[in-house]
């Protein structure tokens, strides 16, 4: 393709030049052809450019340098001009090609460095975030094994629940990593199906009420909400991460309220809390990968919100974090979705 375009462009410029050769003179034609070759060199690979260079040199010689329609050149000056044209055209092609190669190499290197940087951050964060719960588990098990007969029942219970919490935390980290990987590698394919958003939200809330009794989660469903076509698994993860985030950054006994409505062709879900709210200057970074608020307590990798954002955007939706006027933080997820009101469904 590049070859054909190169040849076509050289021919086109030659024909136009040939028709106006009397006005512009054959030396200017050489410059026009050189510009053409230079342009091609900026866009194309080396081979089509060299072909264009040779072809334009021959055309210039044959059709423009007197005597016309021969490759013979009488004038010494014209011979020199022709040789120089040939050289400049070739050099032009080769040099531009080299510059582009160097640029590509630099870009590759930069990309590689960025990837390495990302992996380093990941590994650092990982080794810390995974080793902390692992040390809890190993430590608690050692204690239980070595003091089997001396530990009080209460201490044993404490150790068991420490192991429990630490392993759930590990499991969450692994899940976050897998999800991040799905987003990063572009392996995310949406499996949309009709889903009952209220049911989905209740099932997420249930997971929290079973394990976390320190927060009150309130959800008053809108019974008239239609069915929505969404990837239920991903949306569940979005809500899970947002609610989990709220439980991590609000004091115990805080209230987390969830609201789900339909606004024109989008479902809008907000998750708000009555905690201390978000530091205004940090809001813009909240959804960045590995970003965590300064002074965050340990136990997170800074992936939860960026996954929530990624999954929302995979649905062409958006997610906004802000402070509520009445205090506390509010995260709003807006997702455009096909709706289905089957009111006239035959139910007999």
């Amino acid at each position: 393709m590049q070859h054909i375009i190169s040849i076509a462009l050289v021919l086109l410029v030659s024909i136009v030049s040939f028709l106006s050769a009397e006005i512009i003179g054959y030396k200017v034609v050489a410059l026009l052809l050189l510009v053409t070759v230079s342009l091609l060199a900026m866009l194309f690979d080396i081979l089509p450019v060299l072909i264009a260079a040779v072809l334009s040199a021959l055309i210039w010689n044959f059709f423009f340098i007197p005597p016309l329609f021969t490759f013979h050149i009488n004038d010494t000056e014209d011979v020199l001009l022709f040789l120089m044209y040939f050289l400049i055209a070739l050099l032009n092609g080769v040099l531009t090609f080299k510059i582009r190669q160097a640029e590509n190499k630099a870009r590759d290197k930069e990309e590689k460095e960025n990837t390495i940087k990302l992996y380093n951050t990941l590994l650092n964060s990982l080794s810390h975030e995974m080793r902390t719960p692992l040390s809890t588990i190993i430590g608690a098990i050692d204690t239980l094994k070595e003091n089997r007969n001396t530990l009080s029942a209460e201490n044993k219970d404490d150790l068991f629940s420490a192991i429990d919490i630490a392993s759930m935390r590990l499991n969450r980290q692994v899940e976050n990593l897998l999800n991040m990987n799905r987003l990063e590698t572009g392996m995310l394919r949406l499996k949309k199906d009709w889903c009952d958003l209220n049911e989905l939200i209740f099932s997420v809330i249930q997971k929290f009420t079973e394990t976390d009794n320190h927060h009150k989660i309130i959800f008053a469903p809108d019974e008239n909400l239609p069915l929505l076509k969404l990837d239920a698994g991903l949306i569940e993860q979005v809500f899970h991460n947002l609610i989990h985030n709220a439980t991590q950054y609000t004091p115990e006994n805080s209230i987390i309220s969830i609201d789900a409505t339909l606004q024109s062709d989008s479902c809008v879900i907000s998750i708000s809390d009555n905690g201390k709210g978000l530091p205004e200057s940090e809001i813009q970074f909240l959804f960045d990968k590995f970003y965590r608020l300064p002074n965050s307590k340990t136990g997170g990798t800074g992936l939860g919100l960026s996954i929530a954002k990624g999954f929302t955007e995979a649905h062409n939706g958006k997610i906004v974090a802000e402070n509520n006027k009445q205090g506390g933080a509010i995260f709003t997820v807006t997702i455009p979705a096909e709706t289905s009101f089957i009111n006239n469904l035959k139910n007999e």
Partner: protein
Amino acid sequence: MSKAEILIIDDEPQIRKLLAINLESNGYKVLQASTGKEGIILSASHPPDLILLDIGLPDKNGHEVLKELRSWYNKAIIILSVQDNETDIISSLDNGATDYLTKPFRIGELLARIRAAIRRNNTDENKTTATFSDLKIDFTARTVSKSNTVLKLTSTEYNLLSLFARNEGRVLTHQFILKEIWGIAYQTETQYLRVFVGTLRKKIEDNPNQSKHIITASGVGYRFI
């Protein structure tokens, strides 16, 4: 009643040990196999009441083991999988798995699934009534009562409930339910299913938002207990 026998087919010795300890302490008799081949031979010579099958076996693909088992074994098979892969889960249910659990799972959850699946083994296909805690279904009279009050169900709601009730403890995929209730042409019309599960829940559940009978298996289907 004699102890129910459970065969564990899993290549991880730790997982087998953990499961065996828990199952034995809950009154089950446990058999163990570390490969698909061993599991098939063991279950053929001595059919257990339930098989826990790890889908990620090293020697044979778990799906193949499942198909081979299903060619003659008709009691409960619960799939254990590390991957939360809906397509994988749906295909194992299509191949005859009764239920599935994704690792890591809670032992309490496993025991509940095992109880439901074994209860299902022991039910008579031609039974005329079925009871699920407060819910009572009379298949001959086509009536349903909750805490001794007769419920008004539409014909579709009744058909759906009766399909669930005849398959208690088993995960039914969306496609399967749609095909059974509405016919082959409706296999992808999941919105019908959502609506009728919704109306049915309002009638049979104490709290429709926290179902005790019709349990959602997200992205896969429903399980009735």
